[in-house]
């Protein structure tokens, strides 16, 4: 049997039962690899219940620093009898399979083309611990120990991590370390360690990574920190997976960093609302009243917020919404990832609306963009929706460290205070003095005589007086379009990478790829693979809606543009067509919407397939561009 080989380049998958504490142990495994300076990307694939169902944890190790999901399993650690049959089947030929052999492996689970490692996890723990809770829990730590031996993880790092985790609880540290050692020792004694797949510090790891100061964190925590640093003071929310941890983390940091030292009182308010309508209503109220306010939600919550988003658009109230997308429609797969709320967010609510969207691709960007979202919302006086997703929000990503410029000043946009009102020549809430579609707002309580106005979701004239005149209406909604045009220069511009040189290209077409958010990592990886195979593809990563004019130009410059995204209907492609007036034939969708993140492999396959079938058409349709 040919065994899979690879230094710092492989995929390990853990198959567990949820509620058994396995995610913590698996995280320990991933984090140790990260501490060894080797790029790693862990992904927790969990069911929508609390205890007793299959759950998986994928850890990709990639010397080049590819963080997207890879697909395929090189080594499986399976401690869940429920899923074992499928789990065995999913291992790549030549791969490895570690399992609890307290009970012998059923005959039908035996394959010729993979290597088995039986570790009597249950037996060992029953023997070692008498507390049933520990018996359960430490099983996970034992297999991590065994994996450390098999893959050559630096043992001291694991120990350090445990000490950090249980700081102050010495008993727990020692029982965990003991379990770790048990597993390590068993593996060392029983198997031929390390395996042909293994880790190596330094080694083939890309130099720019070795030199980096990377951190390992998830997007939701980063967004929460962004809200802290961006000066958010009011958070109103309603629990929903996978966005819940945004506010959880905000609460945690705020309790630490936002307590008034004198009084012990809070420089923030968090309200768990009764539902998403109320959560958004509170944010609208707080935003109207001059506080930086935000909420976080996922699909169903976005639908429920639709009416309020329309109000905030039309009444021009700053609002920040963090949408951590999951698989829709409806309840869909609540613990699976997608990028499928794009249209629902961009055109949220009835009538003619356009909402500002941000598309972070890394935790670092979750942080930066959340900060920026608060500025944008106040500058543009409109909702700003950050479109994260479960994969980015809830999984740990290797990310450049968060950075903060202490010279940062919150940009509160065009707000007139008492002085401003006194010195303004003529003030009307909806007077477009500067011609950019953005008018001057005032806050309640600011001035005894001036600046009071009525905010409403109905039509009004420039002086904020209720109006049913068609002319007033048209000039107002046209101004809103003008404002949206202005927004193009405010929002983060798209990013391009220098093109990869390709020696012998196999196509005459000028190819490009557009993508955003968590589709970016696998897309970059795919583009490198395709370059290798003779297909040079230029890339642009979209970071915001409305789209920057660079996007139009970029598309113009190419014959065929792949739009890579994680939904069924190619929603970003639609949005681009709508807003940039692009001929559909130029934009080809590359999609994955199975709920697990898109892989480079899938992208490569789809692009190659489409080049096979498309290039002919395209050439004949646009002879001038061929």
């Amino acid at each position: 049997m040919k065994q899979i080989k690879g230094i710092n380049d492989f995929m390990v998958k853990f198959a567990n039962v949820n509620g058994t504490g396995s995610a913590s142990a698996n995280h320990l495994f991933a984090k140790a690899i990260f501490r060894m300076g080797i790029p790693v990307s862990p992904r927790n694939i969990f069911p929508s219940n609390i205890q007793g169902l299959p759950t998986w944890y994928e850890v990709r190790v990639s010397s080049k620093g590819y963080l997207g999901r890879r697909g395929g399993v090189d080594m499986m650690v399976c401690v869940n009898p429920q899923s074992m049959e499928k789990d065995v089947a999913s291992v790549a030929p030549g791969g490895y399979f570690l399992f609890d052999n307290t009970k012998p492996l059923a005959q039908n689970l035996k394959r010729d083309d993979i290597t088995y490692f039986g570790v009597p996890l249950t037996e060992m723990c029953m023997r070692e611990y008498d507390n049933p809770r520990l018996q359960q829990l430490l099983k996970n730590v034992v297999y991590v120990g065994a994996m450390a031996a098999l893959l050559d993880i630096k043992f001291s790092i694991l120990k350090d991590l445990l000490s950090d985790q249980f700081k102050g609880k010495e008993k727990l540290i020692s029982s965990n370390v003991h379990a770790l050692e048990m597993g390590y020792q068993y593996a060392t004694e029983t198997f031929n360690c390390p395996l042909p797949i293994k880790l190596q510090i330094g080694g083939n790891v890309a130099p720019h990574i070795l030199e980096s100061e990377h951190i390992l964190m998830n997007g939701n925590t980063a967004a929460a920190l962004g809200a802290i640093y961006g000066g958010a003071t009011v958070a109103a929310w309603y629990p929903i997976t996978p966005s819940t941890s945004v506010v959880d983390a905000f609460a945690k940091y705020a309790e630490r960093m936002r307590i008034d030292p004198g009084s012990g009182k809070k420089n923030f308010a968090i309200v768990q609302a009764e539902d998403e309508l109320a959560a958004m209503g509170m944010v609208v109220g707080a935003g109207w009243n001059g506080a930086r306010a935000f909420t976080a939600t996922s699909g169903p919550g976005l639908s429920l917020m639709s009416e309020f988003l329309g109000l905030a658009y039309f009444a021009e109230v700053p609002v920040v919404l963090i949408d951590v997308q999951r698989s829709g429609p409806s309840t869909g797969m609540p613990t699976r990832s997608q990028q499928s709320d794009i249209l629902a967010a961009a055109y949220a609510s009835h009538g003619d609306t356009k909402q500002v969207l941000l598309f972070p691709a890394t935790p670092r960007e979750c942080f930066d963009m959340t900060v920026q979202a608060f500025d944008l919302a106040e500058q543009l006086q409109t909702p700003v929706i950050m479109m994260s997703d479960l994969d980015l929000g809830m999984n740990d990503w290797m990310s450049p460290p968060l950075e903060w410029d202490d010279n940062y000043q919150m940009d509160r946009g065009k707000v007139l205070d008492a002085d401003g009102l006194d010195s303004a020549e003529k003030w009307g809430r909806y007077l477009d003095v500067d011609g950019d579609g953005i008018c001057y707002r005032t806050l309640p309580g600011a001035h005894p005589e001036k600046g009071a106005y009525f905010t409403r979701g109905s039509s009004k004239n420039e002086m904020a007086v209720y109006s049913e005149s068609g002319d007033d209406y048209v000039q107002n909604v046209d101004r809103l379009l003008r404002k949206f045009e202005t927004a193009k220069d405010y929002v983060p511009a798209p990013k391009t990478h220098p093109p990869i040189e390709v020696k012998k290209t196999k196509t005459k077409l000028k190819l490009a790829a557009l993508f955003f958010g968590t589709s970016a990592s696998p897309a970059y990886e795919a583009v490198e693979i395709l370059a290798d195979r003779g297909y040079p593809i230029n890339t642009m990563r979209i970071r915001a809606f409305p789209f920057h004019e660079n996007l139009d130009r970029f598309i113009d410059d190419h014959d065929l543009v792949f739009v890579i995204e994680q939904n069924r209907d190619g929603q970003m492609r639609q949005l681009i067509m709508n807003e940039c007036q692009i001929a559909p034939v130029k934009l080809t969708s590359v999609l994955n919407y199975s709920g697990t993140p898109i892989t480079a492999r899938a992208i490569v396959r789809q692009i190659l397939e489409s080049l096979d079938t498309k290039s002919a058409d395209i050439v004949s349709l646009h002879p001038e561009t061929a």
Partner: protein
Amino acid sequence: MSYIKPKFRHPNLPTNALGFTVADYDGAISTLCAGCGHDSISAAIQNACFLSAIPPHRIAKLSGIGCSSKMPTYFLGKSHGFNSVHGRMPSVATGASLANRELTYIGVSGDGDTASIGMGQFVHLIRRNVNMAYIVANNGCYGLTKGQDSATADLGSVSKYGSTNPFDGIDLASLALLQGAGFVGRSFSGDKEQLEPLIRAAMAHKGFAFIDVVSPCVTFNNHLGSTKSYTETREHLDSMPLDFVPMREEISTHYDAGTTQGVTLHDGSVIHLHKASSDYQTDDRNAAMISVQNAKDEGRILTGLLYLDPNSQNLDQNLKLATKPLNEMGKDELCPGSRVLNSINEGLR
């Protein structure tokens, strides 16, 4: 409704402690129907703010959607106002009050806005004890959408279109009592003497203060009382075109504490208001609920301050909110800076 409002103001109008006249608390001209009870409530709010000498710009007015929710346009033109969406003003008010705990918040709503679409938010607003005065102009119907029964309409009441309401009306004051409101009152739009002090007290209360104000819709529905006596006025009405709304006078009333007053509404039906007597105990929640219920069983509407807990903990207190308004905090208070961030990075390696 009075689109011609005298511009002239008496130079010697009385002033309040701040030197303001009542005209400084004026709003825009009402576009409600002539005689609508809501206009009387607007006037009462205006007067209450004047008498309590609250600086107009330190008040924020919030409402949902409906004839009643239009009211804030018609008083306190120097205050900011927010006419939000139907039934969801409670959440907007909650957010607003968190942003700046120093303003006085007046929420104005209708029975449709509060008891139907707004029921969930209303209950939770009470539960959170947001520091605001919340006034429902209760007419038992949806005025703005032309007279459908609302959820507070009495069982058996007949709408302008002739349908009989088969459902029991929701009693908002009882609900507020049950859900723990620290201030619960009820009054009648035309009873200025009772309503104004109630509003003043509600604004002074440091927590959620609820006032249910019976406010006849002269156009579509007047049947809020449990006892109704139809007259031929009503039949007469029936033959008028549906788009005809006759001009009417506002209804006002005056009666003493401890007495019951029959008020005849424009369609001839009569409601019976019973003013809590001066020895009514306002500090017993259970007793208050029973009193309201008993009055109802007797076909009367109990009015007055029904319950007061001056020490209830409001949301600002519960959340241990800083004294300085959140919307006034700057970078220093809010932004932990690069050093802290670097140490966070350190923890993530």
